[in-house]
């Protein structure tokens, strides 16, 4: 039933389940208060994902199934999302700035006659129930809050800014099947081939510890020392854009506004100046440690611990000391 007080989340499926960012968006929609929360889920089959979404706070699921949605081509997902909006008639449409969301949400917004408040870090309603969206701009140097004037308002949430709700299997909700009339002609940008490096070891996004290197390392070789430290800590290696652009490490290492968003417990930045565009990808780490020879480097502003010095001298001693501490601890009982 179209409900002009409702909020519709544009969901995403990963291996048949709602993506973490989708569950976060549901939590954000609930936190806004007001009307019921619907979720669009689109795929070859939606199956149990609908129940997961309901358990995580959705009141309704708009399920769109089509073989053409199997590999989530943005063209097909935009069409599905537009059909779900037509069915739900919401006042707010909320997505997430995931890889898919980056393509789908701006296009959906323009298809609905408005624009997207993208990559939001905070959402609220004003006195008239209109959406106030806060988003980092100027690479993180200025937070802009905008009032969304479109009907519906369309926003996307930065992943990792809101915690998903605890799943509650006793919650109930309805599942509405929507026909989005997706056919071969819908998909106009066709995927010919998708090559993903088999993530050797730990994904940056899942790592509890990340050791990241920047231009200050001066070349590709020092990254081996970072890898050694990362292995010792059970973590992964990341990099700044400068290090990736220089070809020292693959672009898949890049952390930041246009790279990966990571949320480790510990982020060790070596020879990274801490440009706002880099920090946009790691500012939600629990603790940042910076090793930089420039006392004025911006990275120290965001760091919990800092060492001013030459990484080539600091890092080996740091790694060796950690090695001792950690091999000592394994001998202790418990």
């Amino acid at each position: 039933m179209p409900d002009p007080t409702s909020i519709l989340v544009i969901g995403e499926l990963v291996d048949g389940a709602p993506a973490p960012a989708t569950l976060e968006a549901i939590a954000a929609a609930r936190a806004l208060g007001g009307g019921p929360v619907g979720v669009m889920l689109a795929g070859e089959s939606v199956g149990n994902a609908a129940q997961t979404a309901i358990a995580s706070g959705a009141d309704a699921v708009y399920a769109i199934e089509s073989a053409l949605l199997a590999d989530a081509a943005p063209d097909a997902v935009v069409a599905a999302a537009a059909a779900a909006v037509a069915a739900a008639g919401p006042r707010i449409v909320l997505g997430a700035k995931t890889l898919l969301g980056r393509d789908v949400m701006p296009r959906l917004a323009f298809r609905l006659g408005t624009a997207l408040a993208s990559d939001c870090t905070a959402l609220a309603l004003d006195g008239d129930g209109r959406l106030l969206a806060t988003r980092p701009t100027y690479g993180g140097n200025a937070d802009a809050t905008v009032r969304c004037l479109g009907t519906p308002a369309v926003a996307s949430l930065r992943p990792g800014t809101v915690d998903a709700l605890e799943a509650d299997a006793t919650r109930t909700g309805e599942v509405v099947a929507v026909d989005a009339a997706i056919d071969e002609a819908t998909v106009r940008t066709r995927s010919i081939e998708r090559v993903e490096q088999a993530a050797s070891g730990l994904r940056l996004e899942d790592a509890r510890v990340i050791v990241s290197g920047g231009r200050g390392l001066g070349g590709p070789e020092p990254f081996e020392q970072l890898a050694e430290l990362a292995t010792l800590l059970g973590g992964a290696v990341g990099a700044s854009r400068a290090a990736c652009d220089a070809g020292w490490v693959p672009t898949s290492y890049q952390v930041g506004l246009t790279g990966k968003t990571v949320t480790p417990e510990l982020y060790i930045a070596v020879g990274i100046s801490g440009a706002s565009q880099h920090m946009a990808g790691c500012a939600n780490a629990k603790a940042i440690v910076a090793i930089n020879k420039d006392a004025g480097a911006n990275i120290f502003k965001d760091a919990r611990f800092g060492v001013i010095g030459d990484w080539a001298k600091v890092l080996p001693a740091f790694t060796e000391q950690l090695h001792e501490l950690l091999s000592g601890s394994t001998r202790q009982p418990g």
Partner: protein
Amino acid sequence: MTAKQVLDPETPLSAFRIEDDRVAAASNMAPVINGFDEQAVEAALRIKEAVDGTHVTVLSYGTDFALDVIKKPLAMGADDLVLLQDPAFENVIDPMLTVAALVAAIRKLGDVDLVLAGRQASDWDNAQVPAGIAEALGWPIATIAKHVEVDGTTVRVQRVLPDGHELVEAALPAVVTVSNELGAPRYPNMRGIMGARRIQPAVWSAADLGIEPTEVAPAFELVSLAAPERRVETEMITGDDDADAGRKLALRLREEHLV
């Protein structure tokens, strides 16, 4: 292709000021062309080299332009520059008028097969004007390209993925957004710079484009612009020398159960 003049995103933090809901840089900071837009110029020029008869027109939207800055794509090798310039074309966070003007300009140019744009602008970081153009024109779009190839009727694009890449294909006309993985944009050479001097950009106002700016409904209004809060207390670890500081850092992290 589209290009935007922005504050230099490498501007040191200390030179940024937020005043009256605008971000300004200290007065000695010159504007630059948005970095990803320079990469889009580079992509366009590579296509021009590969495909005979390619004509590269640069569209830029704004209120006032630093001519020596915005002419850089011409010096790099683009054929034409059209400035969409009007007092109403302010650089605001809302993209609706930008999209309307660029779409009108593309229609006015007429014979456009491919629109190339940077993946996002380093000021508002909206990353949506190209999507708006594609939706308005009903053209397919491929985003975050590191390689763009055109053959007659189709465009083939290698897109950057977080852990790899994807090859996609679409029929022309189409919109493609370009990322830094495409490679460094070329430096203008002497001939290019001299050539660019002789090219006078065309200037199209809102009226020339047939748009009434007040009739384009904005999607947002800016409520506030503020420097983000920093919540971190930094503890500096010092030692007798760099190596000693490194060892002490390890001990502190252990104390805090961070390792």
